[in-house]
């Protein structure tokens, strides 16, 4: 556990170095948030209610999505694990007396903690200034949103870990990222809130793990009854199930992958 804590702290501290990049990232998130939010406002001006969403809900989700984008890294950057599989450096990782999954999870949680404080909070604050966002009045719902965000990071980490683990078989995970980096954000609800999709498609996307990365946290924040079971707890349970299932799959696949590994010397 001490090792993991040390890796977590280093992951967190490492990202504090790139201050200019953090500011630039916030700027980009805000620009995209403003563009998408304006499109949503124009759409809802034409049709005030669509599948249970109104203008306030949609604009809030747009900014939540932009705020979470860096935290859950759904559009990248990929875990460095993939590059290490390609270069063979993963051999060093496998020599360590801690599990591969635990090591990278600790590192990624450090990154996510930094992003939550210094990317998500400022981005959402800018959204609050520019647009009429809907805020939960109930402090419990704020707490639920925080839990939901942590679960979103776990689900997203597990998915990104699996993408990179595929590199053990494919030798190059960039092809997977080329597809997952495009379709993941769409299925997560960052391109458009999922309720705007055709209902049949939305129902399918809603139960897939990607929805747990942005759509479910947004609905928890908004207190929507479209969550599984109609309650916030149902949403959190769905996320927890995906996190547990995908992390177990990751742990199992790690065992299979390391049995395949052939490291060429040099």
């Amino acid at each position, binding site marked *: 556990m001490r090792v993991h804590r040390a890796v977590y702290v280093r992951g967190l501290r490492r990202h504090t170095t790139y201050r200019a990049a953090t500011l630039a990232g916030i700027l980009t998130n805000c620009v995209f948030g403003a563009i998408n939010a304006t499109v949503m406002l124009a759409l809802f001006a*034409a049709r005030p209610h669509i599948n249970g969403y109104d203008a306030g809900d949609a604009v809030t989700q747009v900014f939540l999505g932009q705020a979470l984008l860096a935290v859950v890294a759904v559009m990248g950057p990929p875990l460095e694990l993939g590059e290490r599989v390609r270069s063979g450096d993963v051999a060093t990782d496998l020599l360590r007396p801690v599990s591969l999954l635990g090591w990278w999870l600790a590192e990624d949680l450090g990154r996510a903690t930094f992003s939550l404080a210094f990317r998500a909070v400022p981005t959402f604050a800018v959204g609050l200034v520019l647009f009429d966002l809907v805020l939960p009045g109930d402090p419990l719902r704020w707490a639920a949103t925080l839990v939901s965000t942590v679960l979103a990071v776990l689900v997203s980490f597990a998915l990104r870990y699996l993408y990179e683990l595929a590199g053990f078989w494919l030798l190059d995970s960039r092809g997977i990222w080329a597809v997952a980096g495009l379709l993941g954000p769409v299925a997560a609800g960052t391109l458009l809130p999922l309720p705007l999709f055709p209902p049949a498609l939305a129902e399918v996307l809603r139960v897939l793990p990607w929805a747990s990365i942005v759509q479910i946290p947004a609905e928890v924040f908004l207190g929507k009854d479209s969550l599984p079971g109609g309650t916030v707890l149902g949403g959190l349970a769905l996320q927890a199930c995906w996190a547990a299932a995908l992390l177990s799959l990751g742990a199992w696949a790690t065992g299979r992958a390391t049995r395949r590994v052939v490291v060429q010397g040099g």
Partner: protein
Amino acid sequence: MADARVPVFRPVRAYLLLAGTWCRALAQYPASLVMMTLATSLGVFAEISAVLIVFGHAGRLEGFSLAEGLLVAGLAATAFGCADMLLGNVENLGEHIRSGTLDVMLVRPVPPLVQLATDRFAPRRLGRIVPGTVIIAVALVLCDIDWTPGRVLMLPVLLVSGTAICSAVWVVGACLQFFVTGAREAANSITYGGQALTEYPLAVFGRDVVRAATFVLPLAFVTWQPALYLLDRPDPTGLPDGLRFATPLVAVVSCLAAAACWRFGLRHYRSTGS
């Protein structure tokens, strides 16, 4: 020597040669190239589906119907796709400065901008241009357009102008990296952000944004003014209708401004020395 007499074409020849070399290199892995191209196309389909969904719910936005919205989105995808393919790699400037490879480019007898643009030239970006043009074609059939000879002739001019403006935006965005390290993501807000902005009829964003995109960063001439011209609409934000005819001129001016930025940036470049 033909190219000694027409020195203007030498950078073009160098560009084609270097880009061709990268294409040949990537063609060694045909399966990978095809899959990456299809993945790029998926991105266009996702964006276009979003536009379709928005127009499907709204019916009309700022007087634009679904087919007309599709025309705007198709123009945006094509113009940005072409600019991305021709000059998109300039966004790696910061990386070249950091690692010192820009210094290597400066001593070679080929303009550094050409080398920068062709470094890791990516033919997979055709996956953006081809669906973009197909969408334009479909939208042009669906829209009710009064096809005068002028409109037919202007269509390629508008596409070239849009590409030129987007390319200029890419170069200006890259030039920021001469002065601010880590500006790459900030540049994304005008390059990819610009694409997101031009994907919808610009009037959606309100008068101030339309004015800024007309007079400051001329993104209005990528899709908005061309669409107004093709559909023969008055400008709903009250700007003069004559502006749409300025599109080619704006393209030329943007390219000159981008070239000036590039020269200014290059003159103030100081090697990291690593």
